[in-house]
């Protein structure tokens, strides 16, 4: 009984008249046409994580798209309120599990903002080095996912080969392949192990050697790829900005906003790199932006390895981290966009409030906006454009 009631209420909440029908209601009634309601996900083979899209279809054209989240919600913000400051870092790893390093970095920046602690330069360089490797390990699979969604299975395996090799580097440096817990408040956990510099250097060179072949030649010129992605998910700069989109999804419309340059943090002011933009604002443009950002990341990693200073890797935070009352903000450019952390302290050794602004969550608003009017198969490339991660939007 409860179930029936719940379902009725639920349906009532979701079946408001859609704003833009493609066939006008009069014609629909006259010919007795009906739209199909379809649930895409949460257990959909190509869906990014546990997302449910409630779709209203007119034939194969989407009339309304309503993302439903919460299938992976762990209330990380509440858990963080009950953990000591250092013990929150391994939890942030679980947020956006394709960009763990950036999550840790954002949280640590926020707490360091509260503490006013001096970070040794070597630690800053190691952080940047790790974050850029992480960006590679996130952008390359996201290109693979885009292709997987278009029906080509092969690029994802080449992409995961690269991710696997980067993870091997991470394992040597941090001790874990995915949930690193490496960046700490005040620095990093440990110095780079001996010999890893050469390994990273070798890996970067081998990646450069076959990057063009495996991720550009295989994909970029393919006529089917072009016809599936060009002008799909097209958005204007204004739309993207209004929806609060950041990251490659914003840059592919031509807005050159990159936190690394505009709100510099860590060692980025000392490094040379460009913000990559494209003008088209469609799925193909976002692919090109990601490819170019990978190349930029490779350049940043090389500079980091060359300019790496010597010295300590941990600032003096004291044995027990107990920031004064106040607020701290940390903001990093994660592979998906702006990742911000807002930490409120009440003077005790657990945070009073932690708020994560995850790019996956904010970018997903785009779906409601740009999916209606596209065909059903176009939803998947648009998901590749937005590239959300389940752990990110569900916190």
């Amino acid at each position, binding site marked *: 009984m*409860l179930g029936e009631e*719940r379902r009725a*209420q*639920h349906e009532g*909440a979701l079946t408001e008249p859609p704003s833009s029908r493609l066939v006008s209601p009069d014609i629909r009634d006259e010919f007795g046409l009906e739209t199909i309601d379809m649930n895409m996900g949460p257990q959909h083979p190509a869906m990014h994580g546990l997302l449910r899209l409630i779709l209203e279809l007119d034939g194969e054209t989407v009339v309304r798209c309503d993302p439903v*989240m*919460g299938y992976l*919600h762990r*209330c990380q*913000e*509440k*858990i963080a309120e*009950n953990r000591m400051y250092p013990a929150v870092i391994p939890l942030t790893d679980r947020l956006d599990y394709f960009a763990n390093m950036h999550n840790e970095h954002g949280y640590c920046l926020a707490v360091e903002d509260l503490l006013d602690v001096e970070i040794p330069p070597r630690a800053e360089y190691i952080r940047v080095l790790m974050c850029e490797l992480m960006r590679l390990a996130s952008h390359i699979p996201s290109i693979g996912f885009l292709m997987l969604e278009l029906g080509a299975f092969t690029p994802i395996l080449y992409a995961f080969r690269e991710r696997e090799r980067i993870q091997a580097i991470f394992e040597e440096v941090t001790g874990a392949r995915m949930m690193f817990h490496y960046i700490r408040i005040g620095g990093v956990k440990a110095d780079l192990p001996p010999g890893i510099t050469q390994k990273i250097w070798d890996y970067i060179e081998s990646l450069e050697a076959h990057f063009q072949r495996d991720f550009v030649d295989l994909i970029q010129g393919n006529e089917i790829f072009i016809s599936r992605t060009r002008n799909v998910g097209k958005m*204007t*700069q*204004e*739309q993207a*900005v*209004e*929806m*609060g989109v*950041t990251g490659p999804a914003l840059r592919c419309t*031509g*807005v050159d*906003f990159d936190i690394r340059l*505009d*709100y510099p943090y860590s060692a980025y002011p000392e490094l040379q790199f460009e913000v990559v933009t494209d003008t088209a604002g469609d799925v193909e443009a976002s692919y090109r932006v990601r490819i170019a950002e990978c190349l930029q990341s490779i350049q940043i990693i090389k500079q980091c390895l060359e300019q790496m200073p010597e010295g300590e890797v941990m600032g003096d935070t004291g044995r027990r981290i107990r920031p004064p009352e106040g*607020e701290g*903000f940390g*903001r990093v450019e994660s592979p998906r966009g*702006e990742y*911000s952390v*807002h930490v*409120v302290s009440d003077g005790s050794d657990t945070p*009073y*409030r932690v*708020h994560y*602004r995850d790019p996956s*969550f*904010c970018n*997903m*608003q785009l779906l409601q906006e740009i999916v209606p009017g596209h065909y059903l198969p176009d939803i998947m490339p648009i998901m590749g454009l937005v590239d959300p991660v389940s752990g990110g939007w*569900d*916190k």
Partner: protein
Amino acid sequence: MTITLPEGDLQSRLERYFEGLGNRHGLEESEIINNVVLIVAKKDDVPAVLATARETLGILHLSFITIVDREGSFELTYELMDFRGATVRVKTTIEGDEPVIGTVTGVYPTANWHEREAYDMFGVAFAGHPDLRRPYMWQDHFDHHPLLKSFEISTKRTFEGLR
């Protein structure tokens, strides 16, 4: 349609925002700290302050909305970014057990989901919001708002008795 990003150097922009917001609205407090313009506004002024920021001053990006439960009152932080290094942080406080504040979705459409999330987690209602459903929690039969300090979580082991 292209957008125009703000011009001028950081300091002059910060001062422009500071004056632009301070002259139009009766602010409780305002100051510039590093690259942040910190504004404390009255609850009812917030949509107007944000409208000024968006339309007159051209600050394009609403980064996030944070709510802090101060047990008895709620503290809201609206973080605005102009894409070029300056940040405007608007703070306000809502008193009372049934907090209501005006929505800013008309000014910043991206606030839509941020406000939904805030409503879900704290029960802060946003008057005039077009679609105030809960994004995370169950849409019905769940009357709690988990991030309130009064919502206690247990440290008990969750699999007790599951075997």
